[in-house]
């Protein structure tokens, strides 16, 4: 059975201007750094697509583009077949987000009930109806309604994150972008939250884009996983493909660096290489300075995503079948 593409991203590229010194301003030489480079993938309806990558690899930038918060320099994003940047504002509520830091995403001056009901502001609903749906949503995310009149600073980290999820869900969106939703939380609270997200996904038929640099977490919640390196998509596939059969040398390195709660299975990697600069990125394959298999061609030509199987794609010259 072929599933529908809910979101489609094609050839997305995003440059950020570098902060400029006096000399560059005067000489009018603006420097840019390419944070996302020609990224294409799609998110299937009802699935969780995990995105992993090092810090600074462009994960949050990707999330902000998908939420329509910033515009890409080139490339296209479609949501249910429509161009995301032409969607009317109301329809944008079909896409919601939960961010890493609940402290900065929740307005500290508002009570929980006002935070959660914020997306309903434009709806013609009576106060009673709003209150009812807020209570229902809070219960759904495992919070009691007593907390309605509290302010964010009176809540624990896990509670705050639940409030953020309740706000994201109250308009029954189709697509939720989760950017490091559990990175600030302890394992036990993280477990509660992951279970909650999985349960809500089944209940509401939600589609998730789950971003994290914690590979264990991404592997746990995702159906498919995409690996980003320095702004380039290097591998994407079903989660089993990526766990059992990582192909791209960077994915291999990443997997080998993941710690397991088992002292008999320790990390043995000795060679890590340096994180690349985005200002002067390596030519060709951006991973080549760190890659043990690098060839001459890797320095010159940037590899394209190649299909390995129905579910598995990789961008590396080692798998170029020409």
């Amino acid at each position, binding site marked *: 059975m072929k599933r529908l593409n809910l979101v489609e991203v094609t050839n997305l590229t995003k440059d950020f201007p570098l902060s400029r010194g006096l000399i560059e301003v005067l000489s009018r030489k603006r420097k840019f750094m390419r944070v996302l480079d020609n990224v294409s993938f799609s998110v299937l309806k009802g699935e969780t697509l995990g995105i992993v990558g*090092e*810090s*600074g690899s462009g994960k949050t930038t990707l999330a902000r583009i998908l939420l329509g918060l910033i515009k890409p320099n080139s490339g296209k994003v479609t949501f249910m077949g429509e161009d995301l940047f032409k969607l009317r504002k109301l329809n944008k509520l079909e896409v919601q987000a939960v961010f890493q830091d609940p402290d900065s995403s929740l307005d500290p001056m508002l009570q929980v009930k006002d935070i959660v009901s914020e997306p309903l502001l434009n709806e013609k609903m009576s106060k009673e109806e709003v209150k009812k749906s807020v209570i229902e949503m809070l219960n759904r995310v495992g919070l009691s309604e007593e907390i309605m009149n509290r302010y964010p600073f009176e809540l*624990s*980290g*896990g509670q705050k994150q639940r409030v953020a999820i309740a706000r994201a869900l109250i308009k029954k969106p189709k697509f939720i972008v989760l950017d490091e939703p559990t990175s600030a939380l*302890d*394992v*036990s*609270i*993280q*477990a*509660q939250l*992951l*279970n909650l997200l*999985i349960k809500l996904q089944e209940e509401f038929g939600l589609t998730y884009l789950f971003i994290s*640099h*914690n*590979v*264990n*977490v991404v*592997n*746990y*919640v*995702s159906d498919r996983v995409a690996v980003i390196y320095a702004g380039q998509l290097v591998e994407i596939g079903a*989660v*089993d493909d990526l*766990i059992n059969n990582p192909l791209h040398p960077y994915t291999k*390195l*990443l997997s*080998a*660096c*993941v*710690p*397991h*709660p*088992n*002292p*008999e299975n*320790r*990390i043995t*990697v*000795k060679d*890590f290489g*340096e*994180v690349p600069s985005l200002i002067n990125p390596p030519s060709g394959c951006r991973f080549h300075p760190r890659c043990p298999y690098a060839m001459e061609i890797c320095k010159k030509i940037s590899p394209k995503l190649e299909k390995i199987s129905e579910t598995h794609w990789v961008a590396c010259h080692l798998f170029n079948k020409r």
Partner: protein
Amino acid sequence: MQKAHPTVSVDKLEVTYNTIYGQVKALNGVSLSILRGEVYGLVGESGCGKSTLGLSISGLLPTPPARITSGNIFFKDFSINHLSDDDLRKIRGTGIFMIFQSPLNSLNPVFKVGDQVAEAIQVRVQRGNESLNLQEIYNYGPTEKQGFKSAWDVMPKKAKRSPRSWKSDEIMSEVVEVLKSVRISDPERVANSYPHELSGGMRQRIMIAMALSLRPEFLIADEPTSALDVTTQAQILNLMKNLVEQYSTSILFITHDLAVAANVSNRVGVMYAGSLVEEASVYDLFRDPLHPYTTALLKSFPQGNKRTNKLFSIKGEVPDLTSLPLGCPFAPRCDQAKPECYSTKPQLLEVKENHKVACFLYK
């Protein structure tokens, strides 16, 4: 076999913070000891008192609001918790060093990182490049409270050069060497950068470089990798191991990540709400966890995929440290709790060889 002397040991330590909400009992009678060349992993949830323990040992607790209400801290058999800040200075650095939780704020923003590392090297050189001989520094027995000789007084003659001559090329070249050894690819440039010009991972490696420069006998690493991604984390764990191998440093490795603890530790202690609830060798702890809290933590660690593995989540929440329950602090969340668990606090007892647990299920 004769029992080895621990580098650091903590004996029934109690620390409280005075806050407007009441007395926060951050440490509630914690005892542990860490041997030479050993990595002791301390795991536990946020707010259970891990950093408080680290700060107590390094003598950096903010007082007020914090206060050590009882207990003792020993560094190589010498009690150090009553020492003045000036006296502590003499054992900090080459004796005890600490890497703090947030790499973003642990370097001084107005000095070049190279100079900050150079300071660490200077401290070591000033103290004669040798590991501290406490017997010489302390002119008293372990329990007396008396005056101190300074490190300067007991330093070998050859090290007593004027401070000027240390800030030579020698030190700068050692800075570059040590930055290389923490795998910074462009050490000259990085040495000349200010902290805000470096990423979190780089800054944390600078902190490790300081540790490598000081060659401390005891290192407290407070969540040194929590803010970093997996490759950088793996790299830093590797560097920690080098420190142990090269200089027999003992490390108290604080983390809330069980997997990280499994990777670096020789021994692991599990903390809950200000108490140590289980302690064992890393293999025993992960193979055969005894305390219900430890088992629950392990079961809530995400492994595999949601289709094959159900994540366990501990019900309820961490207790309020201002009003701890009378008995076992874990009792309100424990599914095996017995009546006595609510009335008496279980003591940390050795129930198997080198495996201690504080729970009434094991007697």
